[in-house]
């Protein structure tokens, strides 16, 4: 579904050029669950931004669903973000003082289609927050906020869900809950791309791609997948 070839990315700031990615090749099939790992500054976030249509690449080609999407204009990128992908950020990024329901509905505001409110209810139900849908975002705990963010990422029925350090701002218990929800989505056939520097979080994915200094240094199948069972075993 995704094919990157020789991706370079550089930022120009006050005529200082910073090279972040130096020729990244990556193939991701539909339904995969991948963790992109690496220390901060390795370029993993930039890679995710390019994959998620949040940023454009400087050199190379990006094929999405066999279509070349290497150089799309801003409005088309916005459409791809709206239809094809969903994001879960480390800092939740919910609309302040706004209900769970309205937060989840946000991507639908930009979809230019008539929206069935059931879709929103379903998304909220899939993260187990149907009893809190009228609550305001500031009345929720961190874990609940992140679940709202996942529901928001799901509501447009995207092909891929990107999760950028989804547990970074959470205590370990809520973190586990969030990872289980993401794992469940993956098991249901969604492509989940996780960006993290924590090995424990990465272990939930079936494939781990390690990035360092703007290059992929390893790409292997995760042999010890963390799931509900092993977790429960560990907790005992």
């Amino acid at each position, binding site marked *: 579904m995704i094919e990157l070839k020789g991706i370079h990315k550089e930022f120009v700031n006050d005529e200082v050029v910073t090279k972040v990615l130096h020729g990244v090749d990556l193939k991701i099939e539909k339904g995969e669950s991948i963790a992109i790992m690496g220390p901060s500054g390795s370029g993993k976030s930039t890679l995710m*931004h390019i994959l998620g249509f*949040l*940023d454009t690449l400087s050199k190379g080609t990006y094929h999405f669903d066999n279509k070349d999407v290497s150089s799309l204009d*801003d*409005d088309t990128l*916005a*459409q791809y*973000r*709206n*239809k094809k992908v*969903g*994001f879960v*950020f480390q800092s939740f*990024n919910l*609309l*302040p*003082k*706004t209900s769970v329901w*309205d937060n989840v509905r*946000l*991507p639908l*505001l*930009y*979809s*230019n289609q008539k929206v069935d409110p059931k879709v929103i209810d379903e998304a909220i139900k899939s993260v187990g927050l149907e009893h809190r849908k009228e609550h305001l975002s500031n009345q929720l705990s961190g874990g609940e906020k992140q679940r709202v963010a996942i529901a*928001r990422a799901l509501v*447009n029925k995207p092909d891929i869900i990107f999760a950028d350090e989804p547990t970074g701002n959470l205590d370990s218990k809520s973190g586990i809950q969030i990872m289980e929800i993401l794992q469940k989505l993956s098991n249901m056939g969604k492509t989940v791309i996780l960006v993290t520097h924590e090995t424990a979080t990465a272990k939930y994915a079936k494939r781990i791609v390690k990035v360092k200094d703007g290059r992929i240094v390893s790409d292997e199948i995760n042999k010890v997948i963390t799931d509900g069972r092993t977790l429960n075993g560990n907790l005992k």
Partner: protein
Amino acid sequence: MRFDFRNYISVIKALKRNKMRSFLTSLGIIIGISAVIIIMSVGSGAHSLIANEIQAVGSDLIVVLPGASEEDGPPAAVMGISITTLTLDDVKAVERDVEEIADVAAYVSGAATVTWQNKVDDTSLSGVTSNYMQVEAGNELELGRFITKEESDTITKVAVLGASVAKELFGSMNPIDERIKINKESFRVIGLMKERGSSSFQDSDDKIFISITTAQKLMLGINHISMMRAKVVEGADVEFVLEKVKSTLREQHDIDDPAEDDFTVRSSEESLAMLEDITGALNYFLAMVAAISLLVGGIGIMNIMLVSVTESTREIGLRKAVGATSSNISNHFLIQTLILTSMGGLIGIILGVFIAFVISLIVNYLGYNWDFVISPSSIIIAVVFTIAVGLSFGWYPARKAAKLHPIEALRYE
């Protein structure tokens, strides 16, 4: 640009999150718009006051003043300079030669100290001809009679009191046939005028009327008159009669060249037009000042919108991340500005109309004939200005928001 009604809902929610700030931001517009409405309404009210005054005097009047005047400027006589070129002979000539004139009244005026027993009143003295009552509309007698033609042609010491003079000297007593002293000359009171109320510039109640001949010869020692007023017969063309009066007076004064006229003839309509010009210009000037306050209000809105864009940088980033295009974002902020300004405009219009209404109540209570007028043009000006301010001052912040890069916006601390 495509507007989606769902945009409005999310925008209104965004404004509701900051109620106090939204209100304070609109305050500039509220004050500006209500100032425009009030000024334009007060201007129309003042205009109605003048129009009512002219109406009271009669719109079919021709006024002749001594001395030449610039085409549109006020005649010299108005400035308090006494010019002696107009006499009672001129009045008789106009009466005789211009058949389209129904009545001509002549006036002289001066100051008078009136005493009765131990009461003293300083008032203004009007020497008038007997047809004063026919020429000036709105005057009525309360008691007694007015000066007759015989009395106005001779030195006869009779007086008609204005309502407030009578009140000052006699209280509620009947003054008829009482003897009063005007500047030490003894007069007999023959009539009392009905109270007119202080309608505009001249207080018609604080006045005492005597025969014009008596005023000229006995009181002031002059031969000229201060003014004459002629009432045009119904249906006659005022402009035509005006020219006829002029040529009669030229003949009377042996003038060949109109540029050498030593008198000024005006119709009351012309005077009205002149006053309208003056009040109109003043009115527009004041409305301009109010419009400047709208401009300042607009700058205030732009300022707050820029703050709002900066504050919601992360939210803009998020909206872009979930698929909002640049025009979605710019519409969001443009609509937000428009809602703020329209709310301000609406409140401003309501407030302005209300204050203008209160002003008209107060002025009417003070006894002036003042109409409460809200012209449609003032509402249209207010609405157009509001939208123009919203669009022009909302454009820049909206553009700034739309240009934000999604990732940089999301990372904004």
